[in-house]
């Protein structure tokens, strides 16, 4: 089995590494922050990150350096950094490990980002369920403040960088960057219409960068080893660096695996993950969190980078790979995910609010063998009318389980409906209600 150099998980995999400041410093931590404050200008930092080709690790994959470059330099008021630690995409659990095992890695990345974009205040928006992670981050912040890496006059540079932990309270949509900002402002977490983008009108209508935990954790390494080094890893030029892939479902060894982008799904599932957990073969997998359309065994040799997965008709998203074995009913799988999206729709846009509810009801009907022949048409029509008609990308994500399972396993829907037709009472036996 090929072994790969780890970047983000390297420290925490050392025996005895606790993630304390002392351990992190011993492993070379906060060297990048020193370098940046001593020898670099903010624009140079942005250039290095642009050169590295780093793209956001939260799901959308927007180039990080470009995002930073959008922050206006002449803004008279404050600017903000928000670290998106609202990890809620089903199938994803990498940020949790990065925060709980090596919190200073992401804090150093955040401090460097604050310097690059000229922010004095940063918030870590962490999902409300991650109490342990929040506690660990609070402790790490205390350590970093006491050691002068954060707070006023960071490392004698005269700069102020304050980072605070902000706990959410259970809402998937708050991982969407503008919903996150609304929530951080103490409101219902409903996405804002874009434009204007957070880069100009973000937190409190000030320029704001929102970056994922894993994105932040990459920054110190890019500073230490250079943009060219990072750009040489993975599948350049568009998918540089490593990803922490989260493997779940019917595999022998689920968990977090860091590899360069561009390995195949086969390698992740069968080599790193040890293959299927039983003798049943693989039937389907989700390549990038619940929002990513399902793929089939014939896609196993697709490379795990942004472009290749997109070409295969899905997306790499948050890097959460969920594997399903033969025997898993795809209508059931789609229903489970659809229930999630129905539960989590924020309710702002009608197509998503009403559509997810309608989709769940239709799927439940089919799954409970009460489906009607026209139900597949209902699904097709609804799935064609939600995407692109909502303020945020949730609407597009919500239909992907149904669209993709209908594409690959339409027969399973038809079989359930056929069964319903054979077992359900004939239409004249159905009581007619009159008003």
């Amino acid at each position, binding site marked *: 089995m090929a072994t790969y150099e780890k970047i983000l998980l390297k420290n925490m995999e050392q025996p005895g590494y606790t993630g304390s400041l002392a351990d992190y410093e011993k492993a070379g931590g906060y060297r990048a922050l020193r370098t940046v404050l001593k020898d670099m200008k903010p624009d140079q930092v942005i250039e290095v990150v642009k050169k590295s080709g780093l793209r956001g690790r939260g799901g959308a994959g927007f180039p990080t350096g470009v995002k930073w470059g959008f922050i206006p330099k002449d803004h008279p008021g404050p600017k903000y950094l928000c670290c998106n630690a609202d990890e809620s995409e089903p199938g994803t659990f990498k940020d949790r490990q990065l925060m709980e095992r090596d919190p200073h890695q992401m804090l150093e990345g955040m401090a460097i980002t604050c310097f690059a974009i000229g922010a004095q205040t940063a918030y870590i928006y962490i999902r409300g369920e991650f109490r342990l992670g929040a506690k660990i981050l609070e402790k790490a912040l205390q350590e970093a403040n006491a050691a002068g890496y954060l707070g006023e006059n960071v490392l004698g540079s005269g700069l102020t960088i304050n980072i605070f932990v902000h706990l959410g*309270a259970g809402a998937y949509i708050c991982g969407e960057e503008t919903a996150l900002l609304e929530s951080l402002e103490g409101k219902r*977490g409903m996405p804002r219409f874009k434009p204007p983008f957070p880069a100009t009108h973000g937190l409190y209508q000030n320029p704001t960068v929102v970056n994922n935990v894993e994105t932040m954790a990459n920054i110190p390494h890019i500073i230490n080893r250079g943009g060219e080094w990072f750009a040489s890893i993975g599948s350049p030029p568009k998918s540089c660096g490593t990803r922490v892939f989260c493997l779940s479902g019917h595999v022998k060894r689920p968990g977090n695996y860091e590899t360069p982008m561009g390995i195949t799904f086969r390698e992740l599932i069968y080599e790193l993950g040890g293959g299927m957990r039983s003798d049943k073969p693989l039937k389907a997998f989700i390549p990038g969190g619940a929002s990513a359309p399902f793929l089939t065994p014939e896609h196993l040799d697709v490379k795990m980078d942004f472009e290749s997965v997109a070409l295969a008709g899905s997306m790499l998203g948050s890097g959460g790979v969920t594997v399903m074995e033969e025997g898993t009913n795809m209508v059931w799988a789609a229903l489970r995910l659809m229930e999630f999206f129905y539960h989590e729709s924020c309710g702002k846009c009608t197509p998503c609010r009403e559509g997810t509810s309608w989709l769940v009801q239709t799927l439940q009907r089919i799954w409970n063998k009460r489906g009607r022949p026209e139900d597949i048409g209902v699904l097709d029509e609804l799935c064609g009318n939600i995407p692109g008609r909502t303020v945020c990308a949730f609407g597009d994500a919500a239909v992907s389980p149904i669209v993709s399972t209908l594409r690959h396993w339409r027969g399973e829907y038809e079989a359930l409906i056929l069964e319903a037709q054979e077992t359900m009472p004939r239409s004249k036996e159905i009581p007619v209600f009159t008003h």
Partner: protein
Amino acid sequence: MAIGPELLTSTNECFMLFERFKNEVDDILSRYPVKRSALLPLLNLAQREEGFVSESAMKEIAKILDLTPAQVFETVTFYTMFNLKPIGKFHLQVCKSLMCALVGSDDVVMWIQKKLGIAQGQTTADNIFTLSVVECLGSCGTGPMMQVNDDYYEQLSEEKVGRVLDDLKRDGTCSLKTGPFMYPQPLAK
């Protein structure tokens, strides 16, 4: 929860909760340039202390943040983690999203129901356990799992669930909870 007109109009009441945590409240307020941002942290604090977000806590928060009680209430109801009525001492939240369902989360719900004799959304007669079935908790590689108050319990089996419930009831805590998360553990070299 019935929210009567009194919540929306009353202004003078004897507020208690946040008096006791004045330092913590001040610390929270100092973190944000705009007061309203402290809303979720204060609600979290209220729930931590009382087990749920009470009407009087909402009024008190509204007063601290210069909001109307309605503004607080509209925000509270958006977030699933806030309980609007009292629940048991331990809140069992079992994840039922697809990734956990693939590895048996429905069984976990069944085991708990069998052992405690309560259905989803119910609390045991002794007010110790409340059972909820929830969406993804970010623990997909180590499912099936449940969250009990602040702690995660993962890779559950029927035996493990039984032990967690017994320990919690007897000792108020259980050593099987997950610490700082890393999975898989690196192989010993």
